[in-house]
């Protein structure tokens, strides 16, 4: 009996420590979230206390007065287009690479997978110059090209290895019946790939939504800037207004948080696969 009690007490202590650790891991975010509901004066008085009454004035200030909505629109558009293009392009490439043998097949596969090893930050300077030369700099479509390109590798890798596990007999049967390649791709293989495509969509969404250096360098018009760059501008304007800044941060985290808490299994599984390969 005492042994059992001892074990139970040990388990309790252990679980408590674990809980404290986990909570301190997200505490910085929780702190930002509840402080954003306080007034500036409340916060200055005591920066750690919980808000006494809720008010959303900071959110109004950040979103409307601070013009965060502009960056929101820009980020949403860029992310949407990028996700659609990445899914479409990577599915096409992955399908061809996993189903057909042709000269240069391995070369093309390596070519795309090597993208996971290319340090993207280093491309910023030459890309900036290249975009200036070609007149692609500071346009509404400027960010989409690099966003698609730097995201292609992982989806191609994930989709290619997934399609390989789909029995090729399905495609062959369709081919015998006279189905075109595009029909087989979209009507037969694509539906089977749904789970891995949702992983690709989520990972691409996160990466694009959070991207910073390209957006910093390639666009200057304020309505073209994405949220992370918008935040840095915003920080410059509201340096001393902590609670408004926090509201702005919560706003930019919110979409990511939503996606994460719904799809965290896909995210973790996709990132593990990508990381181990890269």
């Amino acid at each position, binding site marked *: 009996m005492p042994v059992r009690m001892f074990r139970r007490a040990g388990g309790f202590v*252990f*679980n408590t420590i674990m809980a404290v650790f986990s909570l301190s891991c997200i*505490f910085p975010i929780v702190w930002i979230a509840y402080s954003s509901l306080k007034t500036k004066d409340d916060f200055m008085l005591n920066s*750690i206390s919980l808000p006494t009454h809720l008010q959303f004035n900071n959110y109004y200030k950040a979103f409307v007065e601070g013009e965060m909505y502009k960056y929101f629109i820009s980020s949403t558009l860029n992310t949407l287009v990028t996700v659609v293009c990445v899914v479409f392009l990577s599915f096409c490439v992955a399908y061809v690479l996993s189903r057909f043998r042709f000269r240069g097949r391995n070369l093309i596969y390596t070519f795309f997978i090597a993208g996971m090893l*290319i340090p993207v930050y*280093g491309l910023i300077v030459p890309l900036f110059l290249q975009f200036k030369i070609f007149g692609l700099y500071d346009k509404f479509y400027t960010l989409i090209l690099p966003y698609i390109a730097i995201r*292609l590798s992982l989806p191609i890798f994930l989709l290619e290895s997934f399609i390989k596990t789909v029995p090729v007999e399905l495609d062959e049967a369709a081919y015998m019946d006279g189905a075109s390649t595009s029909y087989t791709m979209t009507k037969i293989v694509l539906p089977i790939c749904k789970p891995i495509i949702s992983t690709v969509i989520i990972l691409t969404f996160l990466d694009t939504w959070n991207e910073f*250096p390209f957006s910093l360098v390639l666009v200057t018009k304020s309505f073209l800037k994405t949220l992370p760059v918008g935040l840095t501008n915003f920080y410059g304007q509201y340096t001393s207004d902590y609670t408004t800044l926090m509201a702005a941060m919560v706003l930019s985290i919110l979409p990511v948080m939503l996606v994460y808490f719904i799809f965290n299994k896909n995210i973790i599984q996709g990132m593990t696969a990508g990381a181990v390969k890269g």
Partner: protein
Amino acid sequence: MNHGNSLRIKKSTLLWLLVPSIAIYTFVMIIPLILSFYYSLTDWTGGPTKAFIGFDNYRFLMKDSLFWESFHNNLIILLFTIVFQMSLAFILTSLFMSKAMRLKEFHRTVIFFPVVLSAVVVGFIWQMMYSQDYGIVNTVLKSVGLDSYIMPWLDDPKVVIYAVTLPLIWQFLGIPMIIFMSAVQGISKDIYETCELDGCTGIKKAIYITFPLIYDTIKVVIMLSISSNMLVFSHIYVLTGGGPGTSSMVLAQYAYKTSFTSMQLGYGSAVTIGMFILSFGLVLVFKWLAEVKK
């Protein structure tokens, strides 16, 4: 792979499926990579003329104390990140295997969460955490009576490099953790059961069984960590911009500064290439030292 399946595809269809991706990818990734090397051999400052100066930029780079200082800072970040992240992730992985642990799903979800945040948001969150008057770090220190440790964390040249490392450790702890966990799942349950019969308990199990069996995974994760920490940029840009002075300057920040603040595009490219070489070199040295098989 499907050798010799009976599928056939028209040449034109094949091209249509591949060419758009190859074109975009080449334009954004491959050409800049080559151009970057070319620019690094010129003295271009953004004007209409640029002269080819051979390897002069690289010769200058070898003697550029700020470049090596930045590299040194990268190494500090790298060292602390690896030591703390790997050991914490390993401890967590071992704890997650314990039957006494409740709410595993919750803990994993929470610890991994910062990974999906943008570097900019993380930078700002920590800037507020470190704030001299309102930041949590100083408030906590005060409340536990460690008043002498209260300081302007991001403005003191002596501590700033450690202060910018902590957010990196915090944000990316989830990555080694989930990779270790998936490696542990690959270990046969029989091994643990046999060893439990022999009276092997928690800590011993972690040291004598889990560790050796995921040792190769740990090495791979360290390699990932080296290459990502050598290129860290956004966090530093947001937190300090390399300051105060140059005391938290890292290679990527230095490359950005030479290219876009002082518009030395030729030299900035050389810094970038230098950064790649150093980061690639470190990975190779590690691979050789640790005899990574992958």
